């Protein structure tokens, strides 16, 4: 009979401890959800911000043309100006 009462006490202590632990796990899981939502929003914004990256190809083309023009200009200068 005494062992039964011991079990009752143990279970009585176990219930609040278990409740506290489960509540902590649930609270942690619930705190992650809005964070993931915020990350998703930021990722969407970052993705849309990168829409202009494709213009780098045009920039590359322009830079190639500018450097080619500079090279031509330098060639003319090389002919026009005397060496040191």
């Amino acid at each position, binding site marked *: *009979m005494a062992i*039964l*009462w011991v*079990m*009752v006490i143990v*279970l*009585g202590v*176990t*219930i609040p401890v*278990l*409740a506290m632990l*489960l*509540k902590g*796990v*649930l609270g942690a*899981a*619930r705190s*992650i*959800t809005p964070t*993931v*939502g915020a*990350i*998703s929003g930021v*990722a*969407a914004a*970052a*993705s849309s911000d*990168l*829409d202009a*990256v*494709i213009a*780098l*190809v045009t*920039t*590359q083309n322009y*830079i*190639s043309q*500018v*450097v080619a023009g*500079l*090279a031509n200009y*330098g060639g003319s*200068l*090389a002919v*026009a*100006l*005397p*060496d*040191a």
Partner: protein
Amino acid sequence: MDLPVAIIILFIVVIVAMLAIYLIATIVELLKINAGLDQVLDKVGEIATKTAPVNGVLDAVNATLVAGRNLLEGLFYQKAGPDAAGLVESAFPGEGPRFLQRVGKSGTVVPIGEDYPRGAAILNSLLGVAPAPAAPAAAPAAASGPAESVRQGGRITLRGKSAPSSSATVADPPSEPGRLSARGSRPWER
């Protein structure tokens, strides 16, 4: 049934019910997190796709710019000789030694200053204009820009000057014939 047994059974039922409720709620939250992470993964995939060509493009741009820089610096050294590093140092302090290193030369870099008489003389001779006036401060301020100034004869300077303007104001520095400007804020510093 004894009272302790009944209490134990009650406690066990409570524990099982508590476990079920909390774990189910946790599972629901984890499913929400999983769905949110799926969305994040899609967006991150878009970001990775959009940024994939950046490295190649920037490498190509850098290679093109380095080739252009090397070409012009080689030309500069060929035309200005040992004065080139000093001119670079005068226009962009600290760049002279690096310029020498890039063109494969060594030595001490001495800033020449803001005026380059040799270059002015060459340009003046090529353009067929008179030599520079002896007193730059007394020179007429009628030049509307560096090219016009060179045509009028005079000096080449590295001193900064704003874009050519047809209307001179009192606040403007006195324009001097033959001034060519290489100093000023660099594009990446604006």
